[in-house]
């Protein structure tokens, strides 16, 4: 008896994980299916976009401007060793466009909107509002998950682009205004070394991350259980899982796109 219990516990965990993956995949598939099926709930979609995008705009821009600034500062210190400060602009621009903007935007939106989605849906679950939707013959996936998912796909890339822009503004301020790097060279090197694929890969990543963070938030909230504590747990888990997934998928996306 005493031997079986730990094994059972471990087994249960494994089963839970596999079950979780299955449920998530099922939810994802359902979402994809319901996303293309009418009725299209534009108003709900806009509300979700406002919640995910406009609500995260300020924090994303703030993060962006300081990320660019600190990167320029660190880059300048390092490049100064080689007398190559002119490369600061292009280095920051490439880093932002390819990696920093999508990843940090993804993490920021996760922290602010992904957790919000999990909380909202979890609360609806535990207060049986989702069950109520079924009784009203409204598919909760279509009504709750699809708008949030689509909103994530649309607004996170947009936020990522803005992150890059303000990041470059921050880098410009630190590099040219504070550290006195030649303005013409700074801009010229950015134009010289940053290629359209760099920008495009960043946007593609942001698109994927937008899907991941809304999907995880929806999943965790959708399957929350155990009252208020369960909702809190779902929220925390959604943030942790989203962040980890974003970073892992970032590696694979990079490997896929640049190698």
């Amino acid at each position, binding site marked *: 008896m005493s031997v079986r219990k730990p094994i059972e516990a471990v087994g249960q965990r494994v089963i839970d994980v596999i079950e979780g993956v299955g449920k998530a995949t099922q939810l994802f598939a359902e979402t994809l299916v319901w996303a293309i099926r009418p009725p299209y709930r534009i108003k709900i979609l806009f509300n979700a976009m406002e919640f995910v995008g406009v609500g995260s705009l300020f924090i994303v821009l703030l993060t962006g401007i300081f990320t660019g600034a600190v990167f320029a500062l660190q880059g300048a210190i390092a490049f100064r060793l080689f007398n190559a400060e002119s490369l600061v602009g292009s280095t920051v621009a490439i880093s932002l466009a390819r990696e920093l903007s999508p990843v940090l935007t993804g993490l920021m939106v996760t922290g602010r909107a992904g957790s919000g989605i999990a909380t909202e849906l979890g609360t609806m679950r535990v207060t049986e509002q989702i069950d109520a939707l079924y009784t009203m013959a409204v598919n909760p996936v279509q009504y709750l998950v699809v708008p949030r998912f689509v909103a994530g796909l649309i*607004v996170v890339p947009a936020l990522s682009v803005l992150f890059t822009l303000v990041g470059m503004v921050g880098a410009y301020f630190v590099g040219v205004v504070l550290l006195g790097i030649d303005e013409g060279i700074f801009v010229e090197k950015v134009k010289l070394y940053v290629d359209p694929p760099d920008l495009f890969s960043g946007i593609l990543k942001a698109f994927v991350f937008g899907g991941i963070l809304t999907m995880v938030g929806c999943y965790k909230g959708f399957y929350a259980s155990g009252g208020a504590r369960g909702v809190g747990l779902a929220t925390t888990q959604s943030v942790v899982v989203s962040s980890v997934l974003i970073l892992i998928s970032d590696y694979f996306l990079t490997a896929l796109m640049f190698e």
Partner: protein
Amino acid sequence: MRSIFTPFTVGLLVIGGLVGYLWMFGQIKGGIDEDGAGYKVSAVFKDVTGLAEKSRVVIAGINVGQIDRIELEGNQARVWLLVNTPLKSDAQIAKRSAGLLGEFYLELTPGYMGTPLKDGDEIKNVIYDASTSELMNEVQAITKNVKDITDALNRVVTVDGGEQKIKDILEDVRQSVAELNRAIGENGPKIDRMVDNVLSATKQAEQFTAEFRRDARVIMADARQVTSDAKAITGNVRELVGRNAPEVEGSFDGIKGAVGRLQGALDKLDGALTSTQSIAAKIDNGQGTLGKLVNDDRLVESVNELVDESGRFLRRLTRLQVVVAMRADWYVNQADAKTFFEVRLQPRPDKYYSLQLVDDPRGRSSFVRRVRTSSASDTDPLVSEQERVTEDRFRLSLQFAKRMWFFQGRIGIIESSGGVGMDFFLFDDALELSADVFDLDAAANPRVRAMGAVRFFTHLYITGGIDDVFNDDLRDWFIGAGVRFTDDDLVAIMAAAPTPSL
């Protein structure tokens, strides 16, 4: 409110993202049009380290394309370029370093002749630059050399007082060179002359020695002859003595006398030879007139100086130009003519002495003040009268003139009174503007004459001007003509005439 607000803010976000993307895309897309406005050419490189796909291809620093791909071909690399500018078959390509961090780009020279390159053609002229590592090796070698040199220098300088010694040496060298320079500069002509003198003296001595040797030989031959004659006489005497002893006895006294005379002759010959020797020695030592002639340089120097002086004198004489000028001016108010005859002695182009004879109908005016005492007048016992007296129709000018570029100043006696003048030469001396101030008399304004002369046909000239500008009653206009030429015959006369010496 919220229903309107939500789509608006969301729209702003999406549009902002979209616009940001498009703007950034537009910014970084500058350069080559990747859609294929360019064409591909290739070049084979030994080493493409530092080059990568999309590396820049520039002409004169301007982006004209990028590297499309790099592929291995045997043990070399074929680089395909996508360029958007026309290239000729003599185009050149070179790998250039954009910095020390190992970043490289390709530099094209589009070529000037040959056929235009088409898609897929190859650029044959690949220029290999020294790579950074090769450069570093070179620099290392150079650095080693520099180090060796500085070490050596250091050793020299760091010994006790080494630096000061070097300074001293340099100073000494500088002084010596300056000294030498000065000596050569000052004594150049002297040294030349010394060498010439030495040469000529040597030659003379040689000549003299040769002559002397010839003479000595003759003397020696004579002496020999005398000796042989004496020998023969002695033989004859001996024979005579043997044969006619008694007669000899008798005439012995006579022979004794003859021998005595012979002895005397030989003594004289000896004396003559000694004298000859002594003369030769004296000549050698520079004693006596002949010796001085042979050994003393001063005579040669004197001759040299004399020749130099003569040369200078002749040069001065041949340089001297004598200009003869004649002129007549018609004075309008006076209705009379004024005539000039002038001889100019011009030792140098920029100065001359002028002697001018002037025949002036107006003559020279002077003022005489007479004071008379009158007893008839109570109120004004003294009568003062001033009278202008004109005399001396014929007058003389003697002037010294010095010219500087187009300006010439003259000073001396002008028309029998002290004065100065100046001339301006314009249009290659064809136009001459002159002003003379003379006849400085306290009673009237000085006589100022301004005139212009235009030269034509080399020797002829016409004049025009205004005389006595500042004296209203005497002011007069004049026009005239003249002739002026250089006379070489006069120079010859001057040379023949006795020259006064200072």
